[in-house]
């Protein structure tokens, strides 16, 4: 048995009880504050989640871009076809001019120049096609990167949501 006077012991118990009540009140206050902060973080996470609308907008833009590119490929193919016909025509013109003899000597020169121009146009048409493919790849890679990055962020926000729920349930 302790030799501590009974009065002192009772006083200490009263002090402890008083401290406990004070701690509980303090703890209640800090928990309420924590919950408020968690609610604030959850609201921010919900706001960030709205970025999904931006992704949808970018997706629509990408579809428009690729549709535009497809139309450009069509125009490029048409141009290539015209240039090929032009080369054939200039070749035929050169042959006909050669057949006509001296009287068409000037036309031989013109036909040769037209052929040179057609060959240059063919080269440009080929470059245009290659550049369109390059543009398609760069556009698609950029868009897919944005799209994948968006999904990565959405997954991260979901992870954050899960952590917020766990934290809230622990405090409550």
């Amino acid at each position, binding site marked *: 048995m302790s030799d501590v006077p009974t009065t002192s012991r009772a006083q200490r118990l009263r002090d402890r009880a008083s401290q406990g009540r004070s701690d509980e009140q303090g703890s209640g206050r800090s928990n309420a504050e924590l919950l408020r902060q968690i609610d604030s973080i959850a609201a921010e996470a919900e706001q960030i989640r709205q970025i999904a609308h931006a992704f949808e907008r970018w997706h629509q833009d990408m579809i428009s871009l690729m549709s535009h590119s497809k139309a450009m490929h069509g125009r490029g193919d048409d141009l290539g076809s015209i240039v090929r016909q032009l080369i054939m025509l200039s070749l035929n013109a050169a042959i006909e001019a050669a057949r006509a003899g001296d009287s068409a000597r000037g036309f031989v020169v013109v036909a040769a120049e037209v052929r040179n121009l057609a060959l240059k146009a063919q080269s440009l048409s080929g470059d245009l096609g*290659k550049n369109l493919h390059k543009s*398609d790849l760069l556009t698609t*890679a950029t868009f*897919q990167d944005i*799209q*994948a990055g968006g999904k990565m962020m959405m997954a*991260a926000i979901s992870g954050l949501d899960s952590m917020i729920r766990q934290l809230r349930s622990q405090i409550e």
Partner: protein
Amino acid sequence: MSLITEQSRQALADAFFSAARAGLLRAQEDALEIQPRTAGAVAGAADDTVLVITTSSFGFRLLIMFHVDVTPESRTYYGGSPDAGLQPAFAEIANLCCGALNRELSRDFPHLGMSIPYLLNAHCMGCLDELKPDHVAHYAITVNGSVRLQATLCICCSAPVQITPRQHAAAETTGELELF
């Protein structure tokens, strides 16, 4: 200096082999052969296509490109009949394969996202250098000896990328998978 080490390149290849087994086969017992190639898919016809899916993390983006030789065998294997359309069915298959690759990579990169598949003209393969990749690997893939595909992995890094080698890769890819 490259942002992806030789060891990480090999680890990426191992992860892709494992993902190919998980995603490109219709049945587990089917035979899969993967052979590295020096060049990517080359467009045969003017409208030849490649299917592209991108996996991204903070430090890199990885483009995975597939080209399937359109034959009655490949139509039957992926589409269900010799006359079936190949593209929609194979887009799902490629999605599964890339999803499996994502899971493999998520061991090193917890934050990863994957795009939806997109079709490009196969001529685009000739422009890969425009993306300034840190590493490009091409593979010829054969399923059951008759279905032929080509795959290209093109990784562009914006920070050092460290992929941990799969310790059990060899054990898991035994059986029908043959690597050359």
